[in-house]
């Protein structure tokens, strides 16, 4: 029986990132018209159907930029970045890609350096529809993109994230290293990582965010729109990003988008899956908590650094575990509830009529290569930035205004 799970769309108003619609179970695919011999619609298989197409993408300053994008054929809506493919390790994935554009395209999911690609569609000709089946690899964070004419097709918008969850265990990985296993064992069970009073101990596998970072130089998009085949060397040498995005959004929009913002209470750890589909080397900085780098490019880390800024190079896939501890350098007794230690800050509204309450506690994550904080050459901070918010204290009492 074929079942389209509409729940698989993130139910968040204005959410940036959409989870790909998938069908699970047996029955043959009605859309498998490729010459590929891979089986589809097998029992136990999870099927996704994307179309490569074109759209105008609105930048934060209202500028419309022609882009190449993926469309989930179940919804018929083009999205940027592409729909999130989510599966469990070992699941059989049947993926159909239709090329709705005028030039050749492809679809690649690389794995760890030195390991075979998860899947490579090769060349998909204009109008062609190709289906491939592959097994969901080791749990982790993967980038998918069109590798043809690299980096052109990827940077013009043909990219997305694939998340693979583990079958078992309390970490995000199939085979965690000893250090990563210990870190996750300690969450909520140790003095240094106390758990939130009303939450279970440990990391909850649905407590993750995807930050798929990219950049836009509209000059190249305009070339593509005019039908010019872009020289990849020209793009590598002359790419001047004018817009910087997380999950396709910038500035105030990425800072208030529920699929981007880190939201939680003290003692509710969060995993962040960071990917860079663009050409700009980012240096992401989190305020209020040092984070743990648990995986880089699908290699689970042996030496797990606890840091506040980290390089995100083009094509990187980097996982952070944000421990969601109480910001440790708050002045005063660390055991005193914050409502007693900072009552005036929590009650304060700064700025009169245009003020926003200081509660709950909100901090930024931003890239520290600060050109990335601009849009259209200025307009700070309308680039690669989002919020890191603490809604409540460790004892289960929420901060004022946290209920919304």
């Amino acid at each position, binding site marked *: 029986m074929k079942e389209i799970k509409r729940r698989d769309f993130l139910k968040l108003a*204005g959410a*940036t990132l959409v989870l790909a619609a998938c069908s699970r179970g047996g029955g043959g695919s009605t859309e498998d018209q490729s010459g590929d011999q891979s089986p589809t619609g097998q029992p136990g298989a999870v099927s996704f159907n994307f179309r490569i197409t074109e*759209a*105008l*993408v*609105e*930048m*934060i*300053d209202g*500028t*419309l930029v022609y882009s190449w994008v993926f469309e989930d054929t179940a919804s018929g*809506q*083009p*999205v940027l970045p592409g729909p999130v493919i989510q599966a469990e390790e070992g699941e059989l994935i049947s993926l159909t890609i239709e090329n709705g554009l005028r030039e050749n395209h492809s679809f690649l999911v690389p794995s760890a350096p030195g390991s075979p690609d998860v899947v490579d569609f090769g060349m998909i000709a204009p109008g062609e529809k190709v289906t491939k089946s592959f097994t969901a690899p080791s749990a982790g964070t993967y980038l998918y993109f069109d590798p043809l004419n690299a980096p052109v097709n990827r940077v013009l918008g043909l990219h997305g994230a694939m998340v693979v969850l583990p079958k078992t265990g309390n970490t995000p990985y199939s085979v965690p290293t000893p*250090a990563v296993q210990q870190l996750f064992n300690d969450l909520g069970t140790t003095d240094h990582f106390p758990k939130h009073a009303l939450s279970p101990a440990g990391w909850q596998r649905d407590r993750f965010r995807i930050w798929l970072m990219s950049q836009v130089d509209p000059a190249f998009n305009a070339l593509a729109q005019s039908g010019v085949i872009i020289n990849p060397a020209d793009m590598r*040498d002359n790419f*001047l*990003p004018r817009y910087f995005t997380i999950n396709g*959004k910038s*500035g*105030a*929009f990425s800072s*208030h988008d529920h699929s981007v913002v880190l939201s939680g209470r003290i003692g509710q750890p969060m995993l962040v899956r960071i990917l860079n589909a663009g050409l*700009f080397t980012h240096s992401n*900085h989190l*305020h209020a908590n*040092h984070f743990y780098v648990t995986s880089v490019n699908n290699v689970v880390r042996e*030496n797990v650094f*606890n*840091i*506040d*800024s*980290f390089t995100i190079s083009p094509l990187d896939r980097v996982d952070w575990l944000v421990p969601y501890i109480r910001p*440790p*350098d*708050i*002045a*005063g007794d660390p055991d005193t509830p914050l409502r007693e230690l*900072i*009552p005036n*800050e929590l009650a304060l509204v*700064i*700025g009169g009529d*245009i*003020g*926003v309450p200081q509660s709950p506690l*909100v*901090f*930024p994550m931003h890239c*520290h290569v*600060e*050109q990335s*904080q*601009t849009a*259209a*050459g*200025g*307009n*700070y*901070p309308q680039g690669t930035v989002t919020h890191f918010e603490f809604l409540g204290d460790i004892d289960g009492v929420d901060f004022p205004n946290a209920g919304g």
Partner: protein
Amino acid sequence: MALPVIPRGEMPPDETLAFHKHVCPPDFGGPNPDPLNPDLILSRNLLISIDLLLPENARVPMWIIEDPDDPVNGRVFPSKTIRIPRGALVNALVGCEGGTHTIHWHGIEPTPMNDGVGKHSFEVDGNFVYQFQPREAGTYFYHCHKNTVLHFEMGLYGLLIIDPDVPGAPFTDGGPGFCAAFSPATNHVIPYDVEAFWVADEIDSRWHTLGHDDFMQECDPENPVDPANFTQDGFLNDFRPDIFVVTGIPRRVNNPSPFSAADDPLFGPLVAPALQAGQTLLARILNAGYTIQQFTLGIDAEVIAMDGHALGVPPFQQYSSPFRLPAGTPFRLTTAMRHDLIITPASPGIFPVTIEYFHSVSGRRLFTARTAITVI
């Protein structure tokens, strides 16, 4: 056929003020709202304009954060290093002139009002007392977080060092002193004899003609994301450095001469340290620029800390361990990353240190700075 449009996002009506604050943070000043009895009080003013003198006697206008209590060395670039013993409850009196600013204590993690980010609290109008209590000894920095793309580049930053809470702290720049490092037998505190600061930065001269608020968006509480209010003529996305800096000592792009202790009486020994064989050098490294910086030392080193947190030290850093960096092994830092290295030379020699600057988009090498560790 018209192409479909993917919208830039939604601004729910009840978030209009939050969107406005993102663009135009409110002003605020005065005492801290939740004051505690401080162990340490320090003062900083911003901004102060100074000129950075280049070797060929040209000058580059810079902005720095001043220590008003130090009439001799309080106005320097980078802004004067702050040193605080671990655990001290700090009151930082920050004064602002000629516009609003903030100070963010990078890597220190207090409440939003003490974190110095305008859009999450306020920009300082007049003065404010920031309050925090650092719990981990290590290398941090402080910088203005208003129109940060410009203000950080202009020089509104300095090192912030949290020394271990042992007798003698805070220590004098250059050593000797003690630092946090994995060492169970000594309570994770180790001594060093000499201290180096490799704070690498770059300058785009074009940017140094700009004003505080240049290329910022216009404030509009009714529609904070109205496309009409965005500036369209800015170039703060286009960083083309022509001057390269190590801990305040500059070189034009066409000047390959090594950075030495003779360059600047204040910072020279921190950039080109000298020590005796058998002594211990602590090198604190910060990428304070916008390029990818690659450091290569001609001598073995051990990475003992990153971003103010000592590798291996329980409880929070028990999942990591210090690691050896053999001579000649390059490592790269992007903006705001800090590495602390311990170097214990066994025999005399002059050991080269190179810092290569690579563009954050093209990856092209833009400059190679050279200095050295002299072991006598």
